[in-house]
């Protein structure tokens, strides 16, 4: 099972570093990463494999959201299938 991590918010230094460190500490492997700036807003999408982590996906999503609040970003972690279902036929 893979998950999509979405990080959105006002651009500042160190966002990728903070998020990837946070994930690494929880043994979440980053498979793909893509980042851009849209209208001064930072947007990053990561495809991750959380199978090495001890945490359930729901708990990981909750922790990431809290961490996001601390650094002023909106972070979502969602099972990839929600995007597959909605955007692929």
């Amino acid at each position, binding site marked *: 099972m893979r998950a999509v991590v979405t990080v959105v918010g006002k651009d500042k230094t160190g966002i990728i570093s903070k998020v990837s460190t946070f994930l690494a500490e929880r043994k979440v492997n980053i498979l793909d990463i893509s980042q851009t700036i849209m209208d001064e807003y930072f947007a990053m*999408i990561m495809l991750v494999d959380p199978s090495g982590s001890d945490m359930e996906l729901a708990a990981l999503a909750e922790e990431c959201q809290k961490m996001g609040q601390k650094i002023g970003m909106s972070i*979502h972690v*969602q*099972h990839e299938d*929600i995007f597959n*279902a909605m*955007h692929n036929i």
Partner: protein
Amino acid sequence: MFNYKDVLETIDMIEREHLDIRTVTMGISLLPCIRATAEETARCVYDTVCKKAENIVKVTGELSREYGIPIVNKRVSVTPVSLICAPFADKSALIGRALDDAASELGIDFLGGYSALLHKGMADYEQKFLLSIPEVLASTDRLCSSVNVGSSKSGINMDAVALMGRIIKDTAKATADRDGFGCAKLVVFCNAVEDNPFMAGAFHGVGESDTVINVGVSGPGVVQHAIEAIPDADLSDLAEMIKRTAFKITRAGQLIAKEAAKRLNAQFGIVDLSLAPTPARGDSVAQILEEMGLECVGTHGTTACLAMLNDAVKKGGVMASSRVGGLSGAFIPVSEDIGMIEAAEKGVLCLDKLEAMTAVCSVGLDMIAVPGDTSADTISAIIADEAAIGMINNKTTAVRIIPAPGKRVGDQVNFGGLLGRAPIMPVHESSASKFIRRGGLIPAPIHSNKN
């Protein structure tokens, strides 16, 4: 890898446009619970529901967090209770209370199925069951009741229609301290469906398998937003946009339905493609119609807009789900939709226009508050009109009407939460009593003879 547009669109839909899974409803057959006495049956009903649905709240919570999409309601529907307690109909209330206790134990918001199917005739035990409804709805919190009084195949049972007018009045009276709240949990159907996940009309049909998961999606806000994005589009383009949006919404529902069924050890039943509003601003079917170009919902053109919306939602949704069922269409519950509430307060949206709208959309006259002194016969006549629309057009229609005790036109009732608030709407004062009191059966239409 996913592209930004798709991922951010999904997140926007959920965070800003109120996309959610409106309900995950577990249908449970109670047929194996029938015992020799009402007391034993009630005990078995309680145990069965608690056992089968014991994980519904936990599993939907997990799914919601994993997929990042809110699942608003967790519900249970059961076999029509009038069938379960046929041998001891005098004690139907015992089963009703056992079900309400089970719902409370499970932590679900509603349990549907305190129901009877009377579309062709009414047995003595069914009549006794109906008479228990007012008291049972007054003494329970989460139990919902529905009664099917007609079908395209069998006609309209006008004896049942006449009785339901009185039952609704009695239910309002029994819950007069809460503005007739009991009536918000009571629906009268024509062509009721067996796999509807939405309340108050959900029940688990006898043709269904033992335990089934049915899911109702939502997303009026998402559709409204999609229409806003193309302000100058013609109606063909608008219909196309609604279809595409409905597809995406429904796919989310299908995903959750299949996964929920797997984790709850139940069969995947159907996805209901309804656009279900809530009283929140931006989660309203009325606002979609206004976005399409109406100054206020209820004005001329409303029926046409709604017909197009309803059809486009179905076309998009049908392709997105392997099994479509339930009511599948746009809901227009007055008290649960901020746009409808405001239009009714302005006097633009009236009962007659709502009736016309029900001919082209999903259900019927839903969550409508009328003056407390509205007679039982008038309520029966309103039910008969709706049932006729359903019978002739081969569609489900329903009436969920609240004759709010002591209230007059100009007042309002407030039920809070998802049930919202409703201005009291005027009804016609001329009587239909003679028609209602004739009783008997309105025969099935000619086109029911298809064999």
